[in-house]
């Protein structure tokens, strides 16, 4: 039995030697959106804390969340949320052992991107 490479294994994924494809980009975006959502989530927590504290503090924090920069962050967070939502459903589907061949995975990738954009638009229009 070959006794090689016991300790110093490379970390995954090897982004610097990897040609970007729809499948890899939609995959890494799942992780990026998931982690980036912390920013929006903490703003929402802050907003709830302000609402529970009093009217003056609420007006301050609410003013930040509904300012133009707040709107940009909240809209990007909304897109990240819908993207991560759809990508998560794709993962749950994959976990059943289905849709793992490349043509289906690419179709699902396009579907995830389209879903995230359409849902963001719908949410912004409704709310």
């Amino acid at each position, binding site marked *: *039995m070959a*006794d090689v490479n016991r300790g110093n294994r490379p*970390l*995954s*994924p090897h982004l610097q030697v990897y040609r970007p494809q729809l499948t890899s980009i939609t995959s890494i975006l799942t*992780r990026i959106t*998931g*982690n980036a*959502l*912390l920013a929006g*989530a*903490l703003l*929402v*927590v802050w*907003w*709830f*804390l302000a*609402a*529970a504290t009093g*009217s003056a503090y*609420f*007006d301050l924090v*609410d003013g930040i*969340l*509904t300012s133009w920069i707040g709107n940009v962050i*909240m809209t990007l967070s*909304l897109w990240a*949320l819908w993207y991560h*939502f759809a990508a*998560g*459903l794709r*993962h*749950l589907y994959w*976990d059943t052992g289905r849709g793992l061949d490349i043509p289906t995975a690419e179709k699902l990738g396009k579907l995830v991107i389209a879903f995230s954009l359409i849902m963001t638009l719908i*949410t912004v229009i*409704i*709310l």
Partner: protein
Amino acid sequence: MDYITDRKRAVGHGAAKSGTQKHWAMQISAVALAILVPLFVFTFGSALGGSYEEVVAYYSRPFPVIVAALTMIVGFLHFKNGATTAIEDYARGTSRKLLILLVTFVAYTAMATVLFALARLAL
């Protein structure tokens, strides 16, 4: 030379030890969030932009408060587990441990803060 099979060498390490439980926990929280997130987006979204009095009145009703509390609890746990997995992929040694500590601290602090705020608003 080590006369041991590759399988035997892997048993008890990494994903062979606890990876499936972590994956299953992510699946459970993902299914919960698939239900909670749309409910939260549309309840929170309709409250955001209202005046202080409107927001306080809205979040003294049971449904929006329960949806928000569940979304925040499951969401921050899902974030903690997902971010920990990402850290385990990209960082090693002490920086890995410190980053996992930081993520865990942030997730539980945010969760406790928002639950305090929601309780105060609701009661």
